[in-house]
């Protein structure tokens, strides 16, 4: 993973520059003669992704221009095939969702942004902090590492079930808070505390992955740099600021990008923590869209797909800006 995404796009473009002069067909032909085996090696991925992601996506985008629900999309009951009967409505779905009377989208949208930003910020800093600690000579490092990775290694539907017990009104967390003389919030029913609980649990789930990846990045920073910095009299904080952070940039820039994408689309945590019935305000766009789909009858497929497509567009725009920003930073450095 951790290959910096921006460098990726820049390299091939440069290498293909001289070949641009020949016609596109000839270029493809020549590339094929030369690299047919490379294409053969990529073929399985391309076929799988094309059929199982590309085609559904096209279909999904198509549905956003219709009024498809579970009643009028073609389906099969036993031997009876019911054909599609939905009709085209143009941009109506988008208009309804973005400025419709029930106005559900924007609250969910802002909450999704807060959720993504705070989750990624907390997860990355905690992961980095723990990685720095684990990168030292510590007795029992393997022991700590195994324990710290547990939230990643155990499936989320088990751990989140456990969090539900811990955070319930009479659960262990509130017992602890009570013993400390603090308040005992209703983690799973009060809208504000629901959000805090959701962020907390997602951070708990996400830190191990960040930590392990950051640890990998830390170990690729040459020790000589630290020695040189120390010879020049850099304090530990300066070493961290000017050696560790720049050295981590190839790893961290990709990790942050992936973190944002994964958190934005984080389905399991919120779905499993709050179930499919309660906690309306805590739903992020992805679970909101899932709810439009499964939470009502008839299932509003067009609405769900529209929210999904909006999520996708937000992420694409974000990725594009992020990559440009990273590229400019790299350019400024070089």
């Amino acid at each position, binding site marked *: *993973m*951790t*290959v*910096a995404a921006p460098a*990726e796009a820049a390299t*091939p473009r440069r290498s*293909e520059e001289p070949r641009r002069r020949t016609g596109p067909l000839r270029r493809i032909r020549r*590339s094929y003669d030369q*690299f047919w085996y*490379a294409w053969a*090696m*990529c073929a399985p*991925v*391309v076929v*799988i*992704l094309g059929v*199982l*992601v590309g*085609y*559904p*996506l096209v*279909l*999904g985008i198509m*549905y956003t221009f219709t009024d498809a629900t579970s009643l009028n999309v073609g389906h099969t009951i036993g031997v009876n095939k019911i054909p599609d009967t939905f009709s085209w409505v143009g941009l109506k779905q988008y208009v309804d969702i973005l400025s419709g009377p029930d106005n559900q989208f924007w609250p969910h949208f802002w909450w999704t942004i807060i959720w993504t930003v705070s989750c990624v910020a907390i997860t990355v800093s905690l992961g980095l902090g723990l990685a720095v*600690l684990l*990168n*030292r000579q510590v007795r029992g490092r393997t022991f700590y*590492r195994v*324990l710290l*990775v547990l939230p*990643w*290694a*155990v*499936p989320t*539907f088990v751990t989140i079930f456990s*969090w539900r*017990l811990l955070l*319930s009104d009479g659960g*262990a967390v509130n017992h602890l808070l009570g013993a400390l003389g603090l308040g005992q919030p209703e983690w799973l029913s009060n809208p504000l505390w629901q959000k805090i609980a959701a962020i907390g649990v997602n951070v708990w789930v996400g830190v191990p992955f960040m930590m*392990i*990846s950051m*640890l*990998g*990045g830390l*170990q690729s920073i040459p*020790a000589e740099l630290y*020695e040189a910095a120390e010879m020049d009299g850099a304090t530990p904080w300066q070493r961290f600021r000017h050696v560790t952070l720049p050295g*981590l940039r*190839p*790893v961290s820039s*990709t990790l942050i990008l992936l973190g944002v*994408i*994964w958190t934005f*689309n984080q389905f*399991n945590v919120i779905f499993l923590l709050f179930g499919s019935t309660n906690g309306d305000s805590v739903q992020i766009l*992805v679970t909101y869209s899932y709810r*439009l789909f499964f939470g009502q009858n008839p299932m509003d*497929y067009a609405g*769900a797909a529209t929210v*999904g497509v909006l999520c996708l567009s937000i992420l694409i725009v974000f990725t594009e800006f992020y990559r440009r920003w990273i590229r400019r930073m790299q350019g400024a450095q070089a």
Partner: protein
Amino acid sequence: MSQTPQVDKGSQAAKKSRGRGKRGPLASVGLHSVLAIAAFIAAFPVAWVAYVSLGPGEYDYQHPQRIAAHPSLSNYDHVLNHTDFFTWLGNSTIVALGTTVVGVLVAASAGYAVSRIRFLGRGSLMYTFLLTQMFPVSVLIVPLYKILANTKLLDTYPGLILVYCTTAVPYCAWLLKGYFDTIPVEIDEAGRIDGLSPFGTFWRLILPLARPGLAVAAFYTFLTAWGEVAFASYFLLSPDKFTLAVGLQQFVSQYNSQWNYLAATGVLIAIPAAAFFYLVQKHLVTGLTAGGTKG
């Protein structure tokens, strides 16, 4: 990971009264207490499930202090002997291992091609991988259902394995591409000179060298498939095909909530995942490192 140079370890610099990277006792205590607290927070919810699973009564989870007085293994007995646990376990294993094998192979070959060969469309392929991580489940689920139904793959293991591959392969290909980048190209060239085909080089030289990277990819793929809920509950119809994640939901339905059985099953599910993790954890850091070193 032990072969990599330790940041704070240095033997030759003895300028200060305390050698480089030697901590004072206070710093050591601080370091260990921070790590211990973090480890406790990380492990506690997992341990809690194990503890709750020992309480035999249906409502014991609400009164955890009762459990310590009369711990019993009756939940495990019920789960193992009176439910379809072994069917679910078998299904989960088939699906997770199948996804791991197919996913890692497919991801490795694509990652290798992208890492080594400057063919046309290589950059856009990597970008597409990133793009596929952005799709919300809800856009894909109905069209996927249709495709699987049309190809008769609905409610089958291969169907679910293919669907899981779409979520795991892009990331793994990216990871492995980073890893292959760190293997010197000279090895490929030597293989080619000795008469191996491009596929032969890949299969016989590069894959064995990339074992740590493959271990990480395998771990990631396995976990993705092992813990997935949404697709599994929608694409598996017959009870004898249920995976653990789907089967588990039967304990907590609208009509009853047998949290004690759920806890016991949770522990039984966590054990294989944790064991698998323990096997690959030595490689985990080195494998993830590799991607980062070549930006």
